[in-house]
């Protein structure tokens, strides 16, 4: 059936600002996420300079006092998770890819899709506003443990904490609405002939992530309302003097917190699966195993949350249950990594920038996953909890998830978004600059953490055992690594902007991939396909197949 979709020429206002096209909304999320990443990156530059050169004036900020330091640390964490990782990984690539990859013309609810971006934009503006209010930005860590977050005379940021909480709550609402849109679209609007196991893994992962998010965020939304009342009307849900219990907030937060990290992990694994299979020309090793381990990880992720609270006041007997479930959850993830590595076996790997980033994801994420076992085992967590070892662990998982796999996705789908290829040499410079400096930052932080340096401390000169020259040099090395990593983003931004007009024309299928988005023209028009495609086979038919000249077999081709 022909697709009589676009009928009248839309004004700029309709086409870009108030668009209901899933691709434009995807780009809006992507640009907002990248802008917030710059802000988060600036924050980490400022407070790492303070750590490397305590008390010195930081270029571009001035003297960093302890309240500012806490606000910078808190909002670096909040921005990078809620306003960079989730919007870019789930909303930007979810919106852009899901309709294209399952062969339909748009999300099922275009206006709900636009509304969820608008609420997300408001949440980002509310968060930015929280830095300019009296008392400055909220400084009580992104976990916002009460009574510090609930009581203004404890956190000394009366407006900052309220605005931070409202921003996070709005962001949850935006992603609940977005999630319902994604899940319903995948369930109902698949191309004819696309059976469950023909759906590309990245689409599966993004929708699984939306389901995990929806099922885990509920209690925290109730918790956010309770905390908001504590902050504004000093009600006392979490104030022990009034009968409340601060540990209740910790449970509400981490019941959401841990499924949340799998919510951002799964789309990243999906992106790596797409990029890796295309550039190694290899069928994904055991598609069903990847899918089943993803679902198993998702379900298990609801049973592990209290490993964040081993020493934070929960009953020691509970800790034993959670250490068992936490160490067990490393099984499905290890299985998924083994299967990804097995996909490369007997492949023919072409080292494009996207492929380099996908491989770097696997290399780096393995170290992130392995160091997590030190923290999941309750015994060793007594020592490592809230040290820089924890910080290095979750950066070895979050940076590959939110930065490295996102770069792989941008280099891979840029031709489909803008119709032109990004420059490969600039891409390689950007790749080596980012990955090498990333390791220079966080290997020293592992060592610092193992020698007892705790997180969020503004100035280590107060602790003689931490103020040794050796440790201070490690902090300087880490800060130099960070500056190198930020500087090496310049070739990427330059490449991103100039390739818009000056990149090589890409054509529909530059990478010779199978999935349906490469059937549409690049950039795809409103309504995506002239003829909505039918799906005949799985998305990963790569490799030498008898009777076929090419080493790939697009999903929509009949023969």
């Amino acid at each position, binding site marked *: 059936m022909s697709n009589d979709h676009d009928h009248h020429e839309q004004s700029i206002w309709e086409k870009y600002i108030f668009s209901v096209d899933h691709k434009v909304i995807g780009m809006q999320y992507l640009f907002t996420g990248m802008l917030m990443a710059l802000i988060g990156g600036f924050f980490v530059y400022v407070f790492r300079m303070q750590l490397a050169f305590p008390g010195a004036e930081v270029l571009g900020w001035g003297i960093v006092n302890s309240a500012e330091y806490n606000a910078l640390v808190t909002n670096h964490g909040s921005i990078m998770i809620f306003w960079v990782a989730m919007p870019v990984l789930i909303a930007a690539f979810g919106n852009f890819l899901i309709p294209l990859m399952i062969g339909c013309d748009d999300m099922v609810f275009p*206006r709900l899709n636009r509304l969820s971006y608008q609420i997300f934009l408001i949440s980002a503006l509310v968060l930015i506003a929280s830095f300019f209010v009296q008392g400055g930005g909220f400084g009580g860590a992104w976990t916002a443990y009460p009574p510090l977050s609930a009581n203004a005379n404890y956190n000394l940021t009366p407006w900052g904490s309220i605005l931070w909480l409202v921003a996070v709550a709005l962001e949850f609402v935006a992603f609940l609405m977005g999630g319902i849109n994604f899940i*319903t679209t995948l369930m*109902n*609007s698949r191309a004819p002939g696309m059976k469950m196991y023909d759906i590309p893994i990245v689409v599966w992962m993004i929708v699984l992530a939306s389901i995990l998010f*929806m099922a885990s965020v509920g*209690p925290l939304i109730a918790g956010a309302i*309770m905390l908001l009342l504590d902050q504004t009307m000093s009600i006392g849900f979490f104030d022990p003097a009034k*009968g*409340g219990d601060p540990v209740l907030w910790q449970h509400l937060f981490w019941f959401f917190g841990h499924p949340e990290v799998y919510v951002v992990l799964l789309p990243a694994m999906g992106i790596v699966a797409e990029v890796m299979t295309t550039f190694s020309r290899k069928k994904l090793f055991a598609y069903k195993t990847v899918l089943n381990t993803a679902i198993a990880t998702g379900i298990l992720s609801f049973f592990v949350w209290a490993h964040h609270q081993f020493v934070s006041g929960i009953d020691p007997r509970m800790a034993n249950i959670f250490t068992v479930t936490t160490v067990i959850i490393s099984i499905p993830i290890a299985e998924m990594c083994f299967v990804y590595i097995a996909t490369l076996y007997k492949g023919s790997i072409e080292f494009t920038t996207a492929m380099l980033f996908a491989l770097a994801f696997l290399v780096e994420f393995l170290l992130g996953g392995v160091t997590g076992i030190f923290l999941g085992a309750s015994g060793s967590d007594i020592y490592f909890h809230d040290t820089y070892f924890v910080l290095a662990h979750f950066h070895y998982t979050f940076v590959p998830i939110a930065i490295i796999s996102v770069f792989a996705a941008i280099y891979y789908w840029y031709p489909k978004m803008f119709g032109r290829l990004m420059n490969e040499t600039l891409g390689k410079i950007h790749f080596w600059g980012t990955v090498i400096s990333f390791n220079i930052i966080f290997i020293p932080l592992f060592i610092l953490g193992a020698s007892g340096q705790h997180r969020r401390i503004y100035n280590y000169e107060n602790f003689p055992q931490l103020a040794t020259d050796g440790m201070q040099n490690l902090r300087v090395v880490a800060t130099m690594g960070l500056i190198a990593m930020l500087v090496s983003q310049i070739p990427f931004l330059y490449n991103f902007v100039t390739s818009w007009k000056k990149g090589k024309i890409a054509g529909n299928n530059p990478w010779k991939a199978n999935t349906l988005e490469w059937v549409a023209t690049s950039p795809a028009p409103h309504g995506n396909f002239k003829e909505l495609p039918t799906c005949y086979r799985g998305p990963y038919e790569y490799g030498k197949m008898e009777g076929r000249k090419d080493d790939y077999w697009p999903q929509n081709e009949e023969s």
Partner: protein
Amino acid sequence: MGIVQPIATRRSATGILTGKLAVWWLIGSEIVIFGGLLASYIMMRLLHGDWANEAEHTNVVIGATNTFVLLTSSLFVVLSHYWAEKGDRDKAFKYMWLTILGGALFLCFKSYEWTHEIAQGYTISKSLFWSFYYVAAGIHGLHIIGGVVIMAFISFDLKKGKNMHRAELIGLYWHFVDIVWIFLFPLLYIAK
């Protein structure tokens, strides 16, 4: 700017209408929100035995009548859905407005109840029981208001015989709000 409904919305690989599937997922997300709040309330309630003294002052009579009102309005919305399914515009419209009346009645009783309780000094910050009472019943009340407003819009469509399937969608939402109240009523009013 007329938005053309995408073809995606008309597809139904699962056999469930897209709109209804979305409402089921909305109800799923609401279960976890109310569930988290009520779980926290139950735990605190088991800790603080003395809340039973506070709960003495809740008005069980109004709570019971509100339960009756919501049960009846659930009946009306399912009848409205029944007649909408049969294509009878007027009956669907009539029962939808009876449901809206039920919702409005519920809100009137609640506001009467709350004004008296606050007048007697049982405000939200009197004690933690009352905080949970006002937060839980308050969020539920907001959901009733949302439901009533949406039902009004849908009833005008029903009158014109457009989007008749939406009667069932708002009916599902309304039944869910009724079920939440079915659990709220014993937890807040009865547990003495």
